[in-house]
């Protein structure tokens, strides 16, 4: 009974023992429940971990602070309340016990009375007992039931017979015993009560307070047990007076009484201390992140709440801080930030990319537009020009002629500009394809100089010097090289008023490191070489080359500039030897100011606007040259001194063809097959000026000049100037004019190869007297090239032979074979008639066949300079036929399906008499498609089949002339 009773007040007192600020009121119940069991556990925790260290003296001081006092007051109040509560409870208990006692005494009295009565009745009225007994029984039982269950269990067992004397005796004895036990119980209760009261009195406020504090401490530990935080108090000197650290790395004695500096060292300590001092000074709590990097616990980030502690008088006596390790969170946060930054960067990049893509597209479109426009302009312009030229052949008076002359020259200028733009856009768009042919560099240089000399209007010396080590033949795109040379020379002439202009051609160190062509290696070298800025003044190109073999990374840069990889040289056998040719074009002209050098190769840039005004030109020429040189894998540089002259130098990788190969260039003479040495051809040329009448003043001499150019370019019968009949009837009639002109004419007709003979003769003469040449031309009726020199008669020898050959050829081919030979492949009669008439009017002889099959047969039998091919034809279309022809050119044998019937006969006859037939193996005859729908797809098909170009139908003067000019061999 006692145990149960005690438990009751305990339940009520316990919750009130917790300070209210420790737990929320509504959580009291929960915490209270834990208490009973948790007390021991808390003790264990404390002893195990000892996470906190404290300076108790300081605690007293703290208790004196404002907070401490209020806390104390609270505790006192609380204690008082509790005492009162306990007292009340004890009083209640006392009251209750007193009542019980009273009852018991009452009962005792009753029992005694009853006993007395029973004793009496035992002797007197025995029979009345049952009634009384019953009453008594009830009365006895009642209090026991009410007070206690234990009493209730007591069953009085009496063995004796009911209502006998022994029975009553027994009964009285038992009741006596019960009474005694009751007394005993009462006494023990009283004792306990007294003890309690004594206990209660011994509880002083201090004991209570410390007990409470201890509990709070336990509780705090319970809560903070797993919190990764550090709680500390520091005094004004920032010495630790208290620290709670869940993961202590230092013992209490190492921390208490020391400053941060004494404990830790490294990054972040200084900062934290500064902030603490600041907090103390300002009295405002703050929350901050500190990044520590200490030898003790490594790199960690803590978020720290620092609050000042004030004394009663309001002075700062220290700081409290709570710090939490947020290293992982910071890392995560940083990672997130990083990702976000990267995302942003990515996005920015994407926008940038799309923008630049857009710009590139725009640029491409603009370029395309420019190209298209230029093309559109060129067609009518060339129409105008050709008509003007025809007009020049009619009878005009002197004034008209001069006007026409201006018209023609202006037109030529515009045409040149447009051609330049088209060329440039072609190179830039990567559409420019290089064609590898074998050529003789000496010839090229000579021709370029000759051409320049022919149109020379100033008194300049043109000279050419070719090194002995330059191979007789090299492989490369001769047309482009000529274009570059011509451009540079014409520039040089333009800007030179007196002195000389010349070309130096020599071989760079035979095998500069890395310059040997081995498979694709050349591309690399070539491109890296090309990445040397053209404006670089370094004249020693081999050095560049060396440099670049080391820094091949430049290759990419070079590629990025839009120069398509140059595959031309890689396609050949690895066995071919390569040389680097260096070509200098020098002049003694006005030179280029240094500041203009970097702009020189830019499009539409000229050295200065003054120059543009004075000398004209588009500013495209050098840009094209540079692009072309780079396309071929070389570099173009310039060195210049103002008023002294300029030197443009380019180096090009060229391959020396294998000797056994049949040369595929018309420059090659039949007699020079097999073994030539460099001494066969002179290594230097000189074109000296002579006092001449002003050419501009006389229309005739201008035309002569022009005529030489034409002759050299060999695409237009020169005789138109002299005789209109020749124009329409072709060259044949010119043969009658004189022996001299006959031989030349026939030489001409057989292509540049014969002319090379001429020129070799010319070289022997060393100096070509231009003036005399011009005179002789104007004096010779046929108007063909004639050379006045000592060796003029010797010239006839080889030419005669050629004449025979051409006659031989004539027998096989059409009668007009001594002219440019054109094969027209067309099935439509109307178209044939028109095209034929036009070509004849242009002075060309043509063969006509009606389908692709016939075209192949024609090609098998005769050498054509150009093939105009309709695309849609019965039996075999133009594409198919072109494929067959190209395949023959590449392999040297016809596809079995189109093999010529008399193959052997042809080859033997070719060997013996017609070297052209041998040469045609490997030579690429230009094939021009004639297409009715010149849309891109169709054009692509044509080009894919191996055609060189296409003209759109209907064939007209403009497009056919343009095409012929472009594709007929001009050498």
């Amino acid at each position: 009974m006692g145990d149960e009773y005690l438990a009751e007040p305990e339940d009520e007192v316990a919750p009130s023992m917790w300070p209210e600020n420790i737990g929320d009121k509504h959580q009291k119940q929960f915490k209270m429940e834990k208490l009973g069991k948790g007390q021991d556990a808390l003790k264990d925790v404390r002893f195990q971990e000892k996470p906190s260290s404290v300076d108790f003296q300081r605690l007293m001081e703290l208790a004196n602070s404002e907070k401490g006092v209020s806390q104390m007051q609270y505790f006192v109040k609380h204690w008082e309340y509790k005492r009162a509560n306990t007292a009340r409870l004890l009083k209640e208990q006392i009251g209750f016990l007193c009542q019980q006692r009273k009852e018991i005494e009452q009962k005792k009295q009753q029992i005694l009375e009853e006993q007395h009565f029973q004793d009496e009745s035992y002797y007197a009225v025995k029979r009345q007992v049952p009634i009384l007994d019953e009453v008594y029984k009830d009365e006895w039982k009642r209090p026991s039931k009410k007070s206690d269950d234990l009493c209730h269990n007591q069953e009085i067992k009496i063995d004796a017979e009911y209502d006998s004397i022994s029975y009553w005796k027994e009964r009285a004895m038992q009741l006596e015993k019960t009474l005694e036990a009751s007394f005993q119980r009462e006494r023990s209760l009283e004792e306990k009560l007294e003890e309690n009261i004594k206990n209660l009195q011994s509880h002083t406020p201090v004991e209570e307070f410390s007990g409470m504090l201890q509990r709070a401490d336990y509780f705090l530990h319970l809560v903070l047990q797993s919190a990764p935080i550090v709680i500390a108090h520091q005094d004004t000197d920032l010495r630790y007076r208290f620290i709670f650290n869940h993961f202590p790395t230092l013992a209490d004695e190492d921390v208490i009484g020391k400053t941060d500096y004494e404990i830790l060292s490294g990054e972040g300590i200084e900062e934290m201390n500064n902030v603490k001092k600041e907090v103390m000074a300002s009295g405002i709590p703050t929350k901050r992140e500190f990044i520590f990097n200490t030898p003790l616990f490594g790199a960690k980030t803590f978020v720290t709440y620092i609050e000042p502690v004030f004394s009663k008088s309001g002075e700062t006596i220290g700081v409290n801080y709570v710090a939490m390790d947020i290293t992982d969170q910071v890392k995560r946060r940083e990672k997130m930030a990083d990702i976000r930054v990267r995302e942003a960067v990515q996005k920015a990049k994407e926008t940038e990319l799309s923008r630049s893509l857009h710009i590139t597209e725009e640029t491409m479109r603009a370029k395309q537009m420019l190209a298209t426009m230029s093309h559109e302009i060129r067609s009518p312009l060339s129409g105008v020009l050709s008509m003007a030229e025809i007009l020049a052949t009619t009878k005009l008076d002197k004034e008209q002629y001069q006007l026409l002359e201006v018209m023609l020259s202006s037109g030529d200028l515009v045409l040149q500009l447009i051609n330049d733009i088209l060329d440039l856009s072609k190179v830039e768009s990567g559409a420019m394809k290089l064609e590898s042919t074998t050529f003789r560099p000496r010839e090229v240089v000579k021709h370029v100089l000759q051409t320049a000399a022919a149109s020379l209007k100033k008194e300049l010396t043109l000279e050419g010097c070719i090194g002995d080590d330059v191979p007789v033949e090299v492989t490369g795109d001769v047309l482009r090289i000529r274009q570059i040379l011509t451009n540079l020379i014409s520039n040089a002439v333009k800007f030179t008023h007196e002195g000389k202009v010349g070309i130096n051609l020599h071989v760079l160190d035979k095998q500069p490191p890395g310059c040997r062509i081995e498979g694709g290696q050349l591309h690399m070298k070539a491109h890296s070489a090309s990445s040397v800025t053209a404006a670089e003044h370094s004249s020693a190109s081999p050095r560049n080359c060396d440099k670049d073999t080391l820094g091949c990374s430049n290759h990419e840069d070079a590629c990025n500039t839009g120069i398509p990889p140059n595959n031309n040289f890689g396609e050949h056998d690895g066995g071919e030897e390569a040389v680097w040719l260096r070509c200098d074009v020098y002049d003694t002209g006005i030179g280029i100011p240094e500041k203009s050098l970097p702009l020189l190769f830019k499009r539409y840039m000229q050295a200065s606007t003054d120059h543009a005004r004075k000398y004209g030109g588009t500013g495209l020429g050098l840009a094209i040259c540079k692009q072309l040189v780079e396309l071929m894998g070389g570099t173009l540089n310039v060195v210049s001194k103002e008023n002294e002259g300029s030197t443009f130098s380019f180096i090009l990788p060229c391959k020396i063809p294998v000797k056994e190969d049949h040369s595929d260039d018309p420059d090659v003479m039949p007699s020079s097959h097999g073994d030539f040495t460099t001494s066969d051809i002179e290594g230097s040329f000189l074109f000296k000026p002579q006092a001449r009448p002003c050419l501009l003043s006389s229309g005739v001499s201008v035309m002569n000049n022009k005529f030489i150019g034409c002759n050299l370019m060999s695409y237009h019968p020169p005789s138109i100037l002299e005789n209109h009949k020749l124009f329409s009837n072709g060259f044949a009639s010119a043969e009658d004019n004189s022996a001299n002109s006959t031989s030349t004419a026939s030489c001409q007709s057989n292509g540049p190869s014969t002319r090379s003979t001429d020129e070799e003769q010319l070289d022997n003469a060393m100096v070509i007297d231009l003036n005399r040449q011009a005179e002789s031309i104007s004096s010779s009726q046929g108007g063909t090239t004639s050379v006045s020199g000592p060796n003029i008669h010797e010239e006839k020898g080889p030419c005669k032979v050629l004449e025979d050959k051409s006659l031989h050829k004539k027998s096989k081919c059409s009668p007009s074979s001594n002219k440019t030979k054109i094969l027209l492949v067309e099935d439509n009669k109307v178209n044939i008639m028109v095209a034929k008439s036009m070509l004849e009017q242009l002075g060309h002889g043509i063969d006509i066949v009606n389908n692709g099959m016939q075209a192949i047969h024609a090609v098998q039998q005769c050498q054509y300079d150009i093939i105009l091919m309709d695309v849609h034809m019965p039996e075999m279309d133009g594409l198919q036929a072109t494929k067959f022809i190209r395949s023959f050119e590449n392999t040297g044998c016809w596809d079995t399906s189109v093999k010529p019937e008399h193959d052997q006969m042809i080859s033997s006859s070719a060997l013996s008499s017609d070297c052209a037939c041998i040469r045609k193996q490997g030579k690429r005859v230009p094939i021009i498609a004639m297409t009715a729908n010149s849309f891109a797809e169709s054009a692509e098909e044509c080009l894919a089949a191996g055609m060189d170009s296409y003209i759109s139908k209907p064939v007209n003067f403009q497009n056919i002339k343009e095409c012929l000019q472009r594709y007929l061999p001009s050498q």
Partner: protein
Amino acid sequence: MEYSNLRRQTIFMKKNLFDQGFLDEQFNQLEELQDESSPNFVEEVVDLFFKDSSRLLTNIEQAIDKYPQDFYRLDSLVHQFKGSGSSIGALRVKNECSVFKAHCNDRSLEGCRRSFQKIKREHATLKQKLESYFQLLRQVGPREHAVSSRK
């Protein structure tokens, strides 16, 4: 007087042919090809065209009526027709041929039929016009014509 009148008439007629779109620049080119050596070059070419084209038209007609339609063959026939037409500068015929080819491309037989009727009409008109033109030209005489074409 009579002569210059005729000449003016010729020029006017030719101008009309150009203005109405029957002919284009190509015709001028043909006239330029004409000289003493081939004084009737244009007429010869045009004659050739009409001879050739009537054959082609028959072929096309047959191809249209054939079943199943071979649009590829139709296209190639019309292509030929267009080619020769454009060679003499028959602009309207050429344009209609383009329309026909587009129909071929769409495999629209109905369109082809319609187009073919137009082609035939254009062809006939042109033939008639050119015939009268050449007749006039013959009256003017080859010499004068040669000069005028040069201009």
